[in-house]
């Protein structure tokens, strides 16, 4: 076999592959074109029929049984579920139920291949939110495919199937970072029902080396917003050695802490780590007790920009805080002046001051603020 023969064979192979790919391309495009057109029409029709069903619930608008296998119908249902709420959701659920959609999707989820259809089934079940599918979803929380696991958790969260909370929490440790974050998000949907399981989880895992699950859990508590966990989180803050845990706890306390959280937050406001100080400023402001105004006013002079900024923004949102800000405009510290000025501008105090000046009703503070602002404004 000499070089020429090899060359000829190589050329032949390449050209044959080319022809195959070319024909494949043309075929795919033709098929896709037809599919896309047909899909659009079917979907529009489904949307129209479903709209009629929702608008006049009593009357009968039959939907073809084949819709149960039709992706266009599924998309139409999901789309409508995201637009309407209330009784309409039940009507949609009834229609979906009548077509046996949930059972079909369950069967697809249980099959072993192909990935695309299984994933599609998981997403559909998550969106449809039919309680009878909860068992299958819990089963597949340990599916081999991470995206399917996530969609199952999501579905359980949407239907607030409490029995699944522990199963989901169990997985927090076992998952990779990105999956864990998504799992944690699904817990938010459960709302207050997830609160105490989360607290239990945090207590158990807090002293482990790997705290990432705990951080997510704390974040979720903050998002859920159940005030009863305030004392627990305050306790966590006292013993937390990992700064990431501390930061998450500080953030969550800003939401659920209430007045009891002020003490621990005052302590972290004096931390040597600027992130803790900055977050504490925001959280203290979120709690909303004006007794911390003097503390935040001192934060305006902090060495770190974020701390100053958060302190200023916090003061702007608290009753009586504006006075502290306006006083800070006369301070010696240029950074404090700037932080205060920005906060005042952002919250509209600047605009009101201008209006008052134009009406001839400017107060002393207004003049101070305006002269500061116009101090270095270029033409």
């Amino acid at each position, binding site marked *: 076999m000499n070089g020429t023969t090899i060359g000829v064979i190589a050329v032949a192979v390449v050209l044959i592959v080319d022809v195959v790919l070319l024909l494949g391309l043309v075929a795919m495009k033709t098929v896709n074109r037809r599919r896309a057109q047909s899909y659009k029409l079917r979907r*529009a029709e489904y*949307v*129209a029929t479903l*709209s*009629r069903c*929702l*608008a*006049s619930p009593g009357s009968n608008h039959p939907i073809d049984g084949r819709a149960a296998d039709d992706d266009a119908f599924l998309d*139409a249902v999901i*789309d*409508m579920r*995201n*637009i*309407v*709420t*209330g*009784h*309409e959701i039940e009507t949609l659920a009834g229609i979906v139920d009548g077509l046996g959609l949930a059972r079909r999707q369950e069967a697809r989820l249980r099959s072993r291949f192909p990935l695309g259809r299984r994933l599609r089934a998981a997403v559909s079940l998550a969106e449809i939110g039919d309680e009878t599918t909860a068992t299958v979803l819990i089963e597949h929380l340990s599916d081999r495919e991470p995206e399917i696991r996530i969609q199952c958790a999501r579905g359980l969260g949407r239907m607030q199937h409490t029995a699944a909370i522990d199963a989901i929490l169990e997985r927090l440790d076992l998952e990779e970072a990105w999956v864990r974050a998504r799992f944690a998000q699904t817990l938010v949907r459960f709302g207050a029902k997830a609160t105490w399981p989360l607290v239990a989880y945090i207590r158990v895992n807090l002293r482990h080396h790997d705290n990432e699950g705990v951080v997510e859990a704390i974040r979720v508590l903050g998002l859920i917003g159940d005030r009863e966990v305030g004392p627990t989180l305050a306790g966590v803050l006292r013993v937390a050695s990992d700064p990431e845990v501390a930061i998450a706890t500080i953030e969550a306390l800003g939401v659920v802490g209430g007045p009891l959280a002020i003490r621990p937050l005052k302590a972290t406001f004096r931390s040597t780590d600027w992130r803790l100080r900055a977050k504490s400023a925001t959280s203290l402001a979120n709690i909303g007790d004006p007794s911390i105004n003097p503390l935040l006013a001192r934060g305006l002079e902090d060495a770190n920009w974020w701390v100053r900024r958060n302190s200023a923004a916090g003061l702007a949102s608290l009753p009586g805080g504006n006075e502290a800000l306006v006083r800070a405009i006369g301070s010696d510290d240029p950074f404090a002046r700037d932080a205060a000025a920005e906060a005042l501008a952002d919250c509209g105090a600047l605009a009101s001051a201008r209006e008052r000046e134009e009406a001839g009703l400017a107060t002393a503070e207004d003049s101070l603020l305006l002269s500061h602002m116009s101090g270095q404004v270029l033409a």
Partner: protein
Amino acid sequence: MGEIKRVLVADDSDTVTTVLVTALELEGYEVETAGNGIEAYEKGLIGEYDLVILDQLMPGLLGLEVIDRWREEGRQISTIMLSGVDDDRTVVGSFESGAVDFIRKPFRIPELLARVRQRLQE
């Protein structure tokens, strides 16, 4: 009652438009649609609508901008803002611009119809 009320529905989502048109037509209103901000603005100027249901996030012009422009042209059209966007800027802005109502997405159809009825009576 009176003559048939004319409503303009402006939203870039086909699904939302279909749902609204179906529900409103069943109530006996005459409904027209617009698929983007500019179309909404133009139709609002020349058409005689008793009520407009306006989405915020539309291509061309945002819902709030449409209302502002109508006002600049001296047109006062009864408008209900319908939006999935929930931030202060949009909600407060809607009322400041002169919208008579603000409905969040997702919405309840009976509630929307009740509000439409209410606004049309005013």
